[in-house]
């Protein structure tokens, strides 16, 4: 099956710093989403981004489908950004959203 690797696995930032999270996937995909899991376990959908670039406030994401990677940028980080970030992909041709989740990046933003 498709493999989804994220880096770095852990990241510690001071409040106000910027960061880039990476997601590599091993096969062609027709769906890629980024999620944030807060410290209480709730998963929040950040982006649907199978290709191209999107921005939402301090967050932006870029997917280069031909090179099989996606990047999530966090600017001016805040303590509320802490948690685990997952990318998830749907392998091309499966027809509906059977997502395969990546390994995750655990982010801690300290004040």
């Amino acid at each position: 099956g498709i493999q989804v690797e994220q880096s770095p696995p852990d990241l510690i930032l001071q409040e106000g710093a910027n960061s880039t999270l990476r997601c590599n996937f091993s096969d062609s995909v027709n769906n890629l989403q980024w999620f944030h899991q807060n410290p209480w376990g709730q998963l929040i959908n950040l982006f649907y981004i199978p290709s191209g670039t999107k921005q939402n406030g301090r967050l932006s994401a870029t997917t280069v489908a031909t090179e099989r990677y996606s990047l999530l940028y966090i600017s001016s980080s805040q303590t509320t950004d802490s948690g685990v970030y997952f990318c998830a992909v749907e392998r091309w041709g499966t027809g509906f959203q059977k997502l395969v989740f990546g390994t995750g990046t655990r982010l801690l933003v300290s004040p």
Partner: protein
Amino acid sequence: SAVISQKPSRDICQRGTSLTIQCQVDSQVTMMFWYRQQPGQSLTLIATANQGSEATYESGFVIDKFPISRPNLTFSTLTVSNMSPEDSSIYLCSVEDRRTDTQYFGPGTRLTVL
């Protein structure tokens, strides 16, 4: 976006017993998904539940262990049967929004098996 609720939010159970988790959505959806998240790990899809048909299970998951019901377009249940400590996990249901091609998750059920 869909609003999803799950019951119970957490439970502590004895080995050998079974627990049924409920998932309720505020709108009608075709597909509902059940995931497991073991401690410190990523999410793994257990099965896909389509209303009116048998659930489709992923490799490594079987109906006898994780029976699923989908009686209507807004509700599903997952049962964790004959539990062992290895079943201690967060169980999450999700739905897809076909208008935006995104997936939304419930708050999860934290299960501890002693």
